[in-house]
């Protein structure tokens, strides 16, 4: 009962969205499936970005450079995959690039105790500059993008089968990462330490936790997840690299993180909502609604974000030590 009333807004929202989807899809199975599948697809990079943000911010470091991490990783992943022809190698390169950028962010903000917002902005601008400078048009993936894997008989279920059990590998990985990170954050020693460092670093230090080490580890790990998000964009969603292809997703991921109250499960729910706002656009176009004024469809996800952040989230409370460089004194 307690749980039920605590999450009642989530249930109300979900119920409304399901009804709205059925309505816009004219109660047809194919269209409903398409909207739901697109929702999941659109939400995947946002969840990954938000998970990166959660890991960083739970340990007390703001990461505004998620956008840059995803862009850099999308580029690294694509270049490696297109020159070796090996997608797995590409994904690995994407993750490695994200981790490297995470380590760099940690070096700037933890070791040098620089301003975290500036450090993140450096990542963003550097990623835009470097990827545009070194990008050559005309490259492609010899093996195509990652292929769909059907999970046996589950994939044959109506609607759900197509939406959840017939996806590409990085999407499955993302779906797996959400509960794993949730468990790690709230049920393991590492998670407790992370949260302790984020809330009260000097207290954590007095009981023998190395604040610097925890922050480094979380930023690198988070970078790897953002890197996975980048690799998802270039190797799984699009199948090529384009200049500025992240298109603000890293920033939307920050909104997703805050909306999800720094909780992986919450962030997943939030990402699905934003993914849905994007997916439903296609449905609007399909139905020919607002066909003459597509701009109003284009701005919907952003208005949804504003309304949600202003209306639902209100004064969400971030980890207490966030944004402050830590020094042992």
């Amino acid at each position: 009962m307690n749980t039920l009333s605590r999450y009642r807004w989530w249930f109300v929202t979900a119920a409304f969205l399901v009804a709205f989807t059925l309505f816009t899809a004219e109660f047809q199975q194919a269209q409903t499936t398409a909207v739901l599948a697109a929702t999941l697809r659109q939400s995947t990079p946002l969840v990954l970005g938000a998970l990166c943000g959660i890991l960083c911010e739970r340990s007390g470091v703001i990461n505004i450079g998620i956008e840059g991490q995803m862009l850099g990783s999308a580029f690294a992943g694509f270049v490696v995959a297109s020159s070796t022809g090996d997608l797995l190698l590409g994904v690995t390169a994407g993750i490695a690039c994200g981790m490297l950028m995470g380590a760099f962010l940690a070096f700037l903000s933890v070791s040098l105790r620089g301003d975290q917002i500036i450090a993140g902005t450096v990542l963003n601008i550097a990623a835009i500059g470097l990827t545009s400078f070194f990008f050559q048009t005309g490259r492609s993936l010899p093996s195509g993008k990652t292929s769909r894997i059907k999970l046996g008989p589950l994939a044959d279920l109506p609607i759900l089968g197509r939406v959840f059990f017939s996806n590409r590998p990085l999407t499955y990985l993302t779906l797996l990462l959400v509960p794993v990170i949730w468990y790690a954050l709230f049920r393991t020693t590492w998670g407790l330490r992370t949260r302790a460092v984020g809330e009260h670093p000097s207290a954590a230090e007095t009981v023998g936790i190395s604040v610097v080490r925890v922050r480094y580890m979380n930023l690198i790990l988070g970078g790897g997840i953002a890197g996975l998000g980048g690799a998802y964009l270039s190797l799984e969603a699009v199948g090529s690299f384009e200049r500025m292809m992240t298109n603000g997703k890293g920033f939307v991921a920050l909104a997703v993180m805050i909306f999800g109250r720094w909780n992986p499960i919450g962030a997943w729910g939030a990402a699905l909502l934003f993914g849905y706002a994007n997916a439903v656009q296609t449905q609007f176009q399909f139905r020919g609604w607002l066909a003459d004024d597509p701009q109003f469809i284009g701005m919907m996800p952003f208005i949804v974000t504003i309304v949600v952040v202003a209306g639902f989230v209100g004064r969400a409370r971030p980890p207490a030590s966030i944004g402050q460089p830590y020094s042992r004194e």
Partner: protein
Amino acid sequence: MTFLRSALVPILAVVLAIASGAIIIELSGLNALEAYKALYDGALADRKGIGRTLEKATPLVMGGLAVAFAFKAGLFNIGGQGQLVIGALFAGAVGYGVTGLPWIIHMPLALFVGGIGGALWGMLAGVLKATRGAHEVITTIMLNFVALNITDWLTSKVWREPGIIVRTPAIESSAEIPRWSQLPTGFALAVAAAFACWYLLERTTFGFEIRSVGLNPEAARYAGISVSRIVILTMFISGMLAALGGAIETQGIVGRYEPGFNAGLGFNGITIALLARTHPLGVIPAALLIGAMEAGGSTMQFKADVDPEITEIIEALMLLFVATPILVRWVLRRRDTSEISVGAHWGDA
């Protein structure tokens, strides 16, 4: 002396960044000296080049001021892009839509309407923060996308010039900001705005209140300052600054509003504000520097075959060196405590 000391870090950062940029150019198999020579030729060698640099620098000054001004209150306005397009479009609409006015009224009127449009757009984020606790980093970014869509729609449906190209009709000559022998006078307006910001922040009670909120909102509240009021007004002014940059661009250079002009200015504003270490007057040299790099970029590509994107890498490097405390401490031989940390108020509602 203190001025020299605080200017030392940015100057050193610029030198280091340009040197690192040279290494990158050399590593990609091109001639760095030739590239920088071409950059100089395109940006500063003659009156035409200088005019182009000032042209590019004008919206950069305004965008940098918008970010720097908001920083002083501890606010991070990433919405410069949205505020700019609103200002540019509104100025363009008044510029062509209102006819029969003398220059002395029409030109300022268009600037004013553009500025107020962007100011209200910026204030929206301030109101959402003050009343609902919505973080301005998120709302301003979202408002950027909304603004781009709205201006696109207004340009293609409401204020469209008949024809195939989606743009507004050319503005009346009475709304133009004239040139003075190839040099854009809009730049003088931007410089004036920088001095006005400096005066407002450093010499008035209101500016004191803004800085108090930026340094410590709790203390400011305790001292009887209404933090909500400051947040809303700061975003209003910040939005107006960015929007005026767009309006000057429309009235002084482009002559009409075209969708997609000046993309990426939001990011540049942040770079410039940080390069200037959020000092309103420091924004002027910072913007001139970036403006010169943008102005010379095409010449560099043409003469030395170096992608103009290299300038973005150099910008990131400058920012990196400016923001690296180790460099600051090494140069100044002390802990620099006088600066506002941008990140300190991330969680404050």
